[in-house]
């Protein structure tokens, strides 16, 4: 998980708290709690948008559609079958579930004369890649593969009839089908989430 630093100007609370209170330890505690609450709301909104973006991304949509259906990313079959998921698997559901449990936690860092500083933990791409194992090689990530390239092994995972006898011949005939073009996916969505969160805090939206 990455930590992103954010700050809230103290003047936001000056109208409601006197300078004396603000400089006291009780005042700091009040301002910190209020700033933290305010940040939490902003994080909530941005994180919900981020999860929506993940779920509605064309890659996710195609994987969600299951093994049947056309593709905008592979020349034959679709992403679900190309990666090689089991027909009853719901990889996007699992991904969203994992991300939902990682909703950014806010941590108070320090206070200066003008600002209160916080850090929030945001899921980074490594975190996501570790939790999205490739069906045919658990040490690899399908989400990373979307961005860096995926071998076509998944194509052979759920083929009925590909097995002991003559399997090699069938497989040889099918090779080179279903080429995949790398596409920006979760890395860019995480970047946009962090960017929108910073903007929202900075512009007090």
């Amino acid at each position, binding site marked *: 998980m990455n930590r992103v630093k954010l700050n809230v100007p103290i003047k936001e609370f000056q109208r409601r708290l006197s300078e004396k209170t603000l400089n006291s330890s009780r005042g700091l505690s009040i301002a910190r709690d209020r700033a933290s609450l305010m940040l939490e709301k902003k994080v909530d909104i941005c994180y919900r948008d981020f999860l929506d973006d993940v779920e509605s991304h064309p890659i996710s949509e195609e994987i969600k559609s299951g093994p049947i259906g056309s593709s905008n990313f592979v020349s034959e079959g679709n992403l679900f079958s190309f990666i090689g998921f089991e027909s009853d698997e719901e990889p996007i559901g699992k991904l969203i579930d994992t991300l939902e449990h990682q909703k950014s936690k806010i941590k108070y860092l320090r206070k200066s004369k003008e600002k209160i500083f916080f850090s929030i933990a945001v899921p980074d791409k490594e975190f996501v890649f570790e939790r999205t194992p490739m069906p*045919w090689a658990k040490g*690899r990530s399908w989400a990373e593969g979307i961005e860096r390239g995926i*071998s076509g092994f998944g194509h*052979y995972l759920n083929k009925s009839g590909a097995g002991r006898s003559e399997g090699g011949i069938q*497989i040889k005939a099918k090779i080179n089908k279903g080429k995949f073009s790398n596409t920006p996916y979760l890395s860019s969505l995480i970047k946009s989430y962090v960017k929108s969160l910073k903007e929202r805090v900075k512009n007090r939206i």
Partner: protein
Amino acid sequence: MIPNIDHFIKLSFQLWLDHYILKYGQAYTTGNYKLYCTEDERLPAGYLSYSSPFKQWVWDSSISGAVVNSYIYSGSEKIYSDDDNVILDYDNGRAIIKTDNQNLDLTADFSYKDFNIYPTNQTEEDLVVQNKFQENSRYYIQESGIKPYDCVTPAIFINFEEREGVPFALGGMDDVKYYIKAIIVAENDYQLDGINGLLGNCAQRIFPLITGINREDIWNDSINSYSGASYPFGSNWNIVSGGYDYNFRVLKELNDKKLDYCLINKSKCSKVSAKLRENLDLSTYVGFVDFEISNIYFPRIYS
């Protein structure tokens, strides 16, 4: 074309990987083996190929315990490979001999690698599914010489897939990342686990960037005359004169004040699942190691 930094990185990584596996994994076997006369149409007239049962002899003399051979035996007589009459081809595990006699009784002492290393441009599917490589078992000795040139397994195929320059510092300094995939084809699970463990521990290690390697010089050279020490081999995969010591080569680079390092940021290991193995009807055990290598330099000044 003159060699550029990408050439150096690729060859340096390959040389380092070879050295690393032999040194830290002690992945070699030593013995005395018979050499068998094998056909090779590519050899000039008057030369015959006498192959051992194993490919890729150890050529790095810095590996303690490994026998880096420079001679063969005819009966009890030692024949050195110091002229054009006998050339030892380390990659193909054989001796190229200037003779017409196909019935020589030859043996050699050497160490061979547990995993052959081959650079490749083929995709993983092509390597694993399309190519049925000849198995060169490390557990029993075949009673014949192995055919030259074809890749044999157990092996590690190294594919330099992608590079990406990310701005690193003012003035045009980039962090150039190289994504390298190693496809491991092993005889059994034990071998695969061993090599996966070894390569998985590479993360955050550095390897020296050996410059001055020019493969074109080697290709343009005549048989057995190349004596440059940057790269271990001459035009027939014969070892350079005086032998090749990886540590010495790195030390030389250091003395020439040219030494630079690359960092292995990540090395991630994985194995092909049992289900895929079954569906592909594989008799071998396949694994992957994904390396991310980082080198920080000024690409626009260098090239």
